Structure formats: structure tokens, C-alpha cells
């Protein structure tokens, strides 16, 4: 037995089934939400996607006054009366406590999503005019517009990039470790990404949260972190195998390695989560969903590297050894 100077606080191998069940509990609600979304949404996407991937225009106006939720309906009706088709309205309230250091006196942001407005059309001006009637001094603070063909292309390119990143990671890990370690790391990434996407699918259904270009960046960050975490554990397993493979079973080595790296895994995630929480509470309103995606991903990434990935390689090792012992 490797003496780690303290009792093992987690038992990956012994309680294997516990971690399998826990993983399922974490993932299943999200998967259900994704299936439900794919069936019910008109574009059959598992998530509520923003204009980056569907095409469309978002106009954001800053207002001095505080807005109520009833303003959403009011604004929608007002815009529909001037012929804007299916506008999607969202209201972001800017926390006053965050305002001290900034010069702006914007208290609410009203965000209007419509179909793609081309440069030739004056629909954006019409919307601005209409809002000027309804509110005092709305200030147009941001416009983003993505053409319909562009959206599909962005989506395709993001997927290609992520797929290639996966292949690169598998190749490197197979070279430095073993193919089954690489596979476990990739499954770990899948696990983490599935969890975050699942939660955002649920948030999309419940609170209309939409994913945008930044969401892909958040997912990439989660992937980076997830592999990072997993490698640290695997590296320890690799090292311990070198010294102890004759004295201990593979399962014991996995358990010991996880416990040896446990403090590090938790501390690293904690420090990153500290920065992210700071960004969540004190950062800008517009990046809040982005930060939330990273918080969820990093928390689940720590879980998966400790329990999920190590459990997998132990499980496979058991399976591959069975014919020999039988």
C-alpha cells in the first residue's frame, strides 16, 4: 500500500457503482431536456441557439429607468404594431452596486432579437424610433447581426474545430500514455461537455437562455480544463505503476493516485472557481452566461477527472484481465 500520510478519503474502485449512478443522475436530466428540445424546437436543435448560429439581428438599448418584466410584453406589442415580425425581447437589469466605478448611468438593458436586418433595410431605425416613443432616451449600445448563411457556416466550423481538437488530444495522449487513457480522457470531456450543454438546454427551456459564439469558447475552456485535470491524475497513475506495479493491484494504484492528487485537484479548481465567481458577480451582465458555463464545466471537470475517468481505466483494465484469470 502506498502510504499517503492520511487515510484515503475517496474510494474510486470500491464504490465504482456509486460513481456510475451519480454520473447518470448528473447527466440524465440534461439529456432529457436536449431530446425534448430537439423534438419541440422548430430548428430541431438540442439547445436554444442565438443569432450566431441561426442568423438574425440583436439590438440592445441602454435605459436609465428600471424596467419591469411587464415591459417585455409591452415592447413586443409595440414593435409588432409597426410590423416587426416575431421580435424576441429580453430585459437585463444592471445591478446598481456594480455601477460605482463606471461613468454610464444605464440601469436596464433591453435586448431585441429579430430576423436578419440587411444594410438596405431601415427596420433598425424604425425600432429605435418606436422605442423612443415608449421610453425616455434609449441609447443603442450594441448591434449584432448575422446573415442566415453565415450562421450555418459558423456552426459547421465550430464543430469541425472541436472535432479536430479531440483528435489532436487523442493522438497526443496515445503517444504519451496509452490509447485507453486517451479514450478515457475523451469520454471525460464528453461527460463534462454533455453536462454543461444539458444544463444550458434546461436553462433554455426554463429561462430562455440562448447560446452564442461565446458559449463555444466556454465549452473549449471546459475541454482544456477537463483534459488538464485528467492528465494530472493519469500522470500519477503512470508514475505509481512504475514503482508499485509488482506490489499492488491496478485498482489499488488507481485509488492511491486519485487520493494523492486529490488536494491538488480540489485546490486548482477552487482557485479557478474563485476568479470565475468574481467575474460572475462583479463582471459585466453580457458575459454572465458565458461565465456560468465555465463555472459548471470546471466543477464537473474536477468531478469527472477524480471519479469518472479513473473509474473507466480501472474498469477496462479489469475487463481485459478477466480472460487471463478465468
Amino acid at each position, binding site marked *: 500500500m502506498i*502510504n*499517503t*500520510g*492520511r487515510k484515503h478519503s475517496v474510494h474510486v474502485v470500491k464504490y465504482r457503482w456509486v460513481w456510475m449512478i451519480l454520473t447518470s443522475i448528473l447527466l440524465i436530466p440534461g439529456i432529457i431536456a436536449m431530446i425534448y428540445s430537439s423534438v419541440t424546437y422548430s430548428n430541431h436543435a438540442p439547445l436554444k441557439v442565438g443569432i450566431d448560429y441561426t442568423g438574425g439581428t440583436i439590438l*440592445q438599448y*441602454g435605459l436609465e429607468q428600471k424596467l419591469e418584466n411587464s415591459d417585455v410584453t409591452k415592447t413586443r406589442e409595440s414593435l409588432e404594431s409597426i410590423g416587426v415580425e416575431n421580435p424576441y425581447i429580453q430585459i437585463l437589469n444592471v445591478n446598481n452596486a*456594480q455601477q460605482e*466605478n*463606471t*461613468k*454610464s448611468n444605464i440601469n436596464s438593458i433591453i435586448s431585441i432579437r429579430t430576423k436578419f436586418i*440587411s*444594410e438596405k433595410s431601415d427596420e*433598425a431605425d424604425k425600432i429605435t424610433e418606436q422605442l423612443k416613443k415608449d421610453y425616455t432616451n434609449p441609447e*443603442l*449600445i*450594441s448591434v449584432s*447581426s*448575422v*446573415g442566415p448563411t*453565415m450562421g450555418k457556416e*459558423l456552426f459547421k*466550423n*465550430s464543430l469541425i*474545430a472541436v472535432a*479536430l*481538437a479531440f483528435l*489532436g*488530444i487523442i493522438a*497526443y495522449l496515445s503517444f504519451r500514455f496509452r490509447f485507453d487513457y486517451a479514450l478515457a480522457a475523451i469520454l471525460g470531456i464528453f461527460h463534462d461537455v454533455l453536462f454543461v450543454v444539458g444544463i444550458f438546454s434546461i436553462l433554455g427551456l426554463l429561462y430562455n437562455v440562448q447560446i452564442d*459564439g*461565446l458559449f463555444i*469558447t466556454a465549452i*473549449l*475552456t471546459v*475541454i*482544456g480544463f477537463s483534459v*488538464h485535470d485528467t*492528465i*494530472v491524475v493519469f*500522470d*500519477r497513475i*503512470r508514475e505509481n505503476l512504475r514503482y508499485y506495479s509488482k506490489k499492488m493491484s491496478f485498482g489499488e494504484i488507481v485509488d492511491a493516485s486519485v487520493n*494523492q492528487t486529490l488536494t*491538488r485537484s480540489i*485546490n*486548482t479548481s477552487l*482557485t*479557478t472557481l*474563485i*476568479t*470565475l*465567481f468574481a*467575474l460572475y*458577480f*462583479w*463582471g*459585466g451582465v*453580457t458575459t454572465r452566461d*458565458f461565465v456560468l458555463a465555465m463555472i459548471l464545466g470546471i466543477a464537473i471537470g474536477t468531478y469527472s477527472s477524480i471519479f469518472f475517468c479513473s473509474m473507466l481505466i480501472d474498469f477496462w483494465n479489469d475487463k481485459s484481465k478477466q480472460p487471463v484469470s478465468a
Partner: protein
Amino acid sequence: MKNKILMFWFIVAVVIVSSILIFVKPTKLGLDLVGGSRLILEAETTDTIAKITPDVMSRLQFAIEQRVNKLGVAETVVQQVGEKRLLIEIPNVTDLKEAKAFIGETAQLEFKREGKLPDGTPTWESTGLTGRDLSKSILSTDSSGQWVVSLEFNSEGAKKFAELTKELVGQQMAIFFDGELQSAPRVNEAIYGGKAQISGGESGFAYEEAERMVNLLNAGALPVPAKIVEENTVGPTLGADSVAKSKKAGIIGLSAVMLFMILFYRVPGIIADIALVIYSLILFALFKTIPVTLTLAGIAGFILSIGMAVDANILIFERTKEELRAGRNLFTAINSGFDRAFTSIFDSNMTTVITCTILYLLGTSIVKGFALTLALGVAVSMFSAITVTKNFMHLIFGTGELKHPGLFGLRKDEIGQSYEAVETKREKARFGILD
């Protein structure tokens, strides 16, 4: 020990150079932080140009650059992305709608002659004389005080124009700008000398109208029409707000992380914090020197790389603590702690670099910014977390036995209790273990 002191001064020099660079060079902030417009323009084929060739694209880019420069805004960017798209960045634009209209106008000037369709209805036929035959255009007034656009043809254009007017004596010649009939004067005699005027028909041109036309003609027509397929505009207020908030959040987050490191790792924690500050200085100096344009996604990459830099230190300290628990002396514990942590730091950082490279090559501009800052961060963290921390640890703790375990956040009774790693002879030599 001599090497260690040399290394220390090298680190000091790097810090000084970085600080000077940070002080001297301006920070390049992305449009989502300073406010401005990012447009993507897509070239469209026409009847005459059925394929967008690289040559067409470079002419389109040139024409668009001319126009963007005419907006009188500093630090604009026009660059080709993909096969048929241009990326245009305009910071701090005052009248975006006007700017967009100005950029998107094809500005095709065409001279046409009378003709007839097969069924007999009169129409205008192309003559082959277009805006490409111009050398320049000037805003001026005619004898009655109306605003007119004076045209000067280049030598070939002058020849064509002379022949055309000779042919058309007694007939009307029409001038079309972007498909719109501007005027259709009757040609009284052949015009030599290569000069002509466009008047705004019966009502005449308004000043702005004529000026705009002159500007567009001088900037050159677009070889093919182009439309805006993507736009991202952020007002200056929102940008400033994002910067102020990111700064505040960054400072709070970093301070909390530093506090955590000191509470958990004690003296090594302080060293890690110093290494982290040095890391930030070097990275910012690099951002400014390269220069890397900082966007919101780029800031995310930066924060993640801080996480990874701290992680390297945590890995090292955890290993060092294990070695100390096993009863090693300080010098050996620090050395073997670093050495054992190195493989996992190296492998995990390599996968990050692989991912970043792929994303940088394939990603959209948002993703590119993220990948670049993260990759740079990881590279710098390999230096700061390993070289800087190791150097300071050795300088501060020296080679003796660990007399005050509290300095590492260890209890006395933990020492000599645990972890019996079996080293090979080679490793013993490398870590300086004496049996």
C-alpha cells in the same frame, strides 16, 4: 548557488523590461471593449463576373480600404477572410448607418446609349465606358451655380469618350450611377480632351449628394457588389462598462486567489503569488509587444491561463510537501517536487497548446483571440511557475533540514510519516539524495 543568483538577476531583468514595455506600449483593446463596428462583407457574383477570383478580391479589398480610409477614423482594419469575404473593423464610428451605406455602395459609373429591345421598346445599352476609365472626379459648379461632378478620363478613357461622343452626335447619352439614371444630356458635338460633367438632371444635385458621389468615384468602384453578412457593433458606453467591470472582477478574483495560496501553502504560497505577479507582467508585456488585441474572449483565455499557472504551482507544492513528509531535506524535497510535477505540467500544457493551435487555425475571430491568449499564457506559465518559483524557493529555503514545518503549512508530526518513493540511482543523483 552561483547559478541560482545569476538566474535571480535574469528574472529581475525580465521583470524590469516587461514593466517598461507595459508602461510604454499602448494596450490594444478589441472592438467589443472600446466600442466600434465589425462587419463581414461578402462578394457577390454578377452576370459579367461569374467567379470570385483572388484578383477580384484584391481589387475589392483595395476599393473598400479606400472608402474606409475616407471615413476619417483611426485604426481601421480591412482584411480578407476565406475566399470571398472581407472583415472590416471600424472603431468609434459616429454614424454607422451612413458608414455602412458608404462602404456597401458599388459605385458603378456607366455611360449608356439609346437602344431598342427586340420588341421595339426603347432602352439604354452599355457602351463599355465605365468608372474604371476615370482618372479622377472633382466637385464643382456649372455656369448656373448648380453643383456638378466633373470627370476626368484617363488616356484610354478619353479616347473611348471621344469616339463615343463622335458617334452619338445628335443623340442622348445617359450616365448611370449604381444603376440609377443621373442625367441624359444630348450630345451636340464630339468631345476631345477627356473631360465631362454630370449634372443632377433638372432639379440638380444637393451638395451632400454631389460630394458623396465624388468621394465614391475617387475611391473607385467595387469590381463586384458586396453585402454585409455579419455585423457586430458595440457602443462606447457598453465597451467602457465591460472594461471597468472586467478590471474590478479581475482584481477581486486575483486577490482572493493570492490570499488562498498564502493561507494554504504559507511561505511557498507567497512565492507563488510573486511568481503570479511576474507572470502577469510578462504576459501583458507580450500582449502589448506582439500586439495581441484583447477582447472579452481573450480575457477569458487569460483568466484560464492564470488558473493553469496557479495549478502548476499547486502541483509542485503538493509534491514538495509529500517529499517533506517523507523526511527529505529542503533542497532534495524542492528539487524532486519540481521534477515529479514536471511531467504532468508538461503533458497537460501540451494538450492545451495542441487544442489552441487547432482552434487558432480554424476558429472564427472570437475563438482565435481566445486561443492566442491562452497559448501565450501557457507558454509564459511554464517559465514563471517553474523557473521563477523554483529559483525563489531555493534562494529562500536553502539546503538545510526543514526546521519549521509550519512554513509549508505542515504539522510536525506529519514529517517522516509517509510516502516511500523508490528512486533509481539516476534519479537520486539528479535530486541530490545522499544515502
